Structure formats: C-alpha cells, structure tokens
C-alpha cells in the first residue's frame, strides 16, 4: 500500500508542480518583458512550449552515450519533483522524518548534476565547455548556499529538521527579523540565483557564447524535461527560502496560504529584478564572487547567530 501511495503521491505532485512551475516561469518572462517595455508572451506560453516539444522529433547524435543522454533529463525532473513534494509535506507539517535539511541540499544538487551528466554524454565540444562551467559554478555556489542554510538551523536550536524550523518561526517570529537573518537571507538569495542558473550566473548555457552549452544536443521532449525541471525549481527554491527565512504564519487557513504566496512572489520578483539588471559574469568572476565576498558574509552571519544576534 505504502509503495502505491507514495508513487501516486509522486505523480500527483509532479502534475501540480509542473502547472505551478510553468505558470511561475511565465510570470518571470512577463515581468522581464514589462521591464524592457515589451508586451510579453500570453499566460499559456510555457505550457504550449512543453506540449510542442513533446511533439517534436528526438535527435540523438551518433557519438553520444545513448543511455545517459536519455536518462539524465528524467533524473533532473524526478529529483526536482521529489524536492517539491517534500516541500508540500513540510508545509502541511505531516512528514515522518521532519524534512531533513541535508537531504534537501543533496536533492537540490541533482538537477545541476544531471545537466552535467547529460551534457558530457552528448559528445559535443560546446557542451563540454558548458559542463565545465556548470561544474565550477556548482562548486562555487554550494558553499554560500550551505552557509545560508546553517543560519536558520542554528537559530532553531541546532536542528536539521525543516518542520522544527517552521515551528520555531511560528513561536519566535520570522528569522529575517534579526541581523544574522538579514545576512543569511541575502546570501541564500544570491546563491540560489546561481542554483537556478538565471542571468548573472547563466554561463553554463550562455546562448551567445556557447550556443546553449550543456543542452546544445537536446531536442524534443528531452529538452522539455530540462525546461520542466527548471520551471519546478523556480517554484521550489524560492519557497524553500520562504520556509527558512520568512516563515512565521501557520498555513492552516486561507489567510496563511495567501501570505505565503505573497512572500513567495516577493522573492520571485527580487530574483527577476536581479536577473534583468545584471550582465552575465565570467566564470572566474563568479567563482571569486561566491568564494570571496559571499562566503565571507555568510561566515559572518554564522558568527552573529552563534553570538545570538
């Protein structure tokens, strides 16, 4: 029963997360268009893109590793869906093991890893440039991202359970209302932009330099799976930040859900604004930025939270 239940729950959360994610990515595109004084795409645009990609031919190049080439987009969608389904359970507060933070960090790494796997198995030169950048980017943003995760974990009496963090904020107010909370919020927001792979840190698939990077050989629904995984992460990562830093409202009534959505949109709009006002960084600049300033600020935040500020 439990296997069947978890499988059907997975399918259900996949459908719900895809709908939410594609809609949210449309909002991102629309805001971008309005910032550039354009009209922008209609609301169903991202759904139509995925349906179109599912109807296209799938081309697999001769010198690729065919199994990994087909397997890695499915891996990307699966891992991001599991992230999202754990997030739903955390929000409803009925999870057996309390939503472990370390598990979440691992699961959020898998979409980037699957891009690396897919790109390296496609046997394209530009894709190998793309995956080398993606690998360096993964190494660089992971450190400040973990700094940003440790701060609320220490705050909530040194726990790694997401539900404990949610409960702690319901009693003591949001984490962002303290000095270390503000620092941690900034650090995790910027490193999550790297995780999403949007513009200041989109060097892994820079269209103008390396023609799509790791995804260059993908076509048809396999490309659609990557787009879907990206769309789901567009929902998962900002709501993860909301849970860690902007929590404090119980979600058991309509008002609580509305406040959660407003908080989510604040973070989404922040990410979109940063994306639209910054040029793409080179890989050495990104590495210096993440390992230099951002990690320093993150460690400072950890010191603050240890002294109780």
């Amino acid at each position: 029963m439990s296997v069947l239940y978890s499988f059907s729950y997975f399918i259900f959360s996949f459908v719900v997360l895809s709908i939410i994610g594609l809609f949210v990515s449309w909002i991102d595109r629309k805001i971008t268009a309005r910032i550039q004084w354009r009209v922008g795409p209609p609301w169903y645009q991202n759904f139509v893109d995925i349906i179109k990609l599912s109807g296209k031919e799938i081309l697999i190049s001769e010198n690729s590793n065919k199994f990994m080439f087909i397997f890695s987009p499915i891996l990307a969608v699966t891992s991001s869906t599991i992230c999202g389904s754990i997030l739903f359970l955390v929000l409803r507060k009925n999870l057996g093991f309390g939503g472990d933070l370390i598990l979440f960090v691992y699961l959020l790494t898998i979409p980037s890893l699957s891009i690396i796997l897919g790109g390296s198995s496609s046997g394209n030169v530009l894709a190998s440039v793309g995956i080398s950048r993606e690998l360096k980017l993964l190494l660089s943003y992971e450190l400040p991202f973990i700094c940003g995760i440790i701060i609320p974990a220490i705050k909530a009496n040194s726990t790694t359970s997401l539900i404990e963090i949610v409960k702690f904020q319901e009693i003591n107010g949001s984490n962002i209302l303290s000095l270390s909370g503000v620092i941690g919020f900034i650090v995790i927001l910027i490193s999550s932009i790297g995780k999403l792979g949007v513009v200041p840190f989109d060097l892994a698939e820079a269209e103008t330099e390396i023609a799509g990077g790791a995804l260059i050989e993908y076509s048809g629904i396999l490309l659609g799976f990557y787009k879907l995984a990206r769309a789901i992460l567009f929902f998962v990562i900002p709501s993860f930040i909301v849970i860690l830093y902007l929590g404090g409202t119980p979600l058991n009534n309509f008002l609580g859900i509305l406040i959660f959505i407003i908080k989510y949109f604040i973070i989404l709009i922040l990410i979109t604004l940063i994306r639209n006002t910054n040029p793409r960084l080179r890989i050495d600049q990104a590495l210096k930025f993440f390992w230099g300033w951002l990690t320093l600020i993150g460690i400072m935040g950890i010191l603050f939270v240890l002294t109780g500020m």
Partner: protein
Amino acid sequence: MNLKLKSLKKSLWVYHVSGGSCNNCDIEILDLLTPRFDVERFGIILAASPRHADVLLCTGIVNKKCVERIKEIYEQTPKPCVVVAVGACACSGGIFRDGYQMAGPFDKVIPVHIYIPGCPPKPEAIISGIVKFLKELK
C-alpha cells in the same frame, strides 16, 4: 486540427541561418526582437542551437562553401520544422545571381516554405509573412 500543430503554431523557436548575407536582413531580423516589434508576444524566441529550433530563418545567397553546412543544419533541426527565406538574395539570388560564388538560392539546397522578398524586408513584412503562413498551415 490537432494539439501538436496548434502548439507548434503558438511557440516557434527560431534559428537564424546566414548563408553569406550582407548583414542587412540580419539587422532587420534582430529588430523583430526589440520592444517595438516584440515577437515574443506570439511565442517566437531565438533559439541557440538548431536542435532547439522549429523555424530556420535563412538570409543571404548560398555561397559554395555554405552548401554542406546548410544541408547539415537542416538535417540537425528536429522535424516538423519551417524554413523561411528572408530577403531578395535568399529568395532568388538578388543582385548576386550571376556571381561566381553563387550556389543557388536557398530553395536549390533545402525545401523552403515561405519567401519574404525585399532588400531588406521590413520587420512588419517578416511578421506578416509568417502570420499568413501560419493561417494557411493545416
């Protein structure tokens, strides 16, 4: 009309093929993406790789070096795809039709679905050509 075709018409990803053009048509194509014309409201965006593309937007004459590459790009594009010849050179050869480097306009090399004449065609002309084709498509 089935869902596949309907969704294809609403979301065309364009790959820009230049077969040796004088850059005038290419500039007009880039104009399509500017806020004044904004083709993203029809779901049209520029794709980075021919594997992602639904439309090949071809400009320029096809010179002899380009023939193999253009055939390769056409084969790399997942079907169904649409080929659009933009500008007088891509449609018929234009003023270069007697040149020694000319290997025929685009329809000698790959099947072309839409011809948009002009030297260079206005962005409005390109939009109206594609819209007329999409209305005919069944």
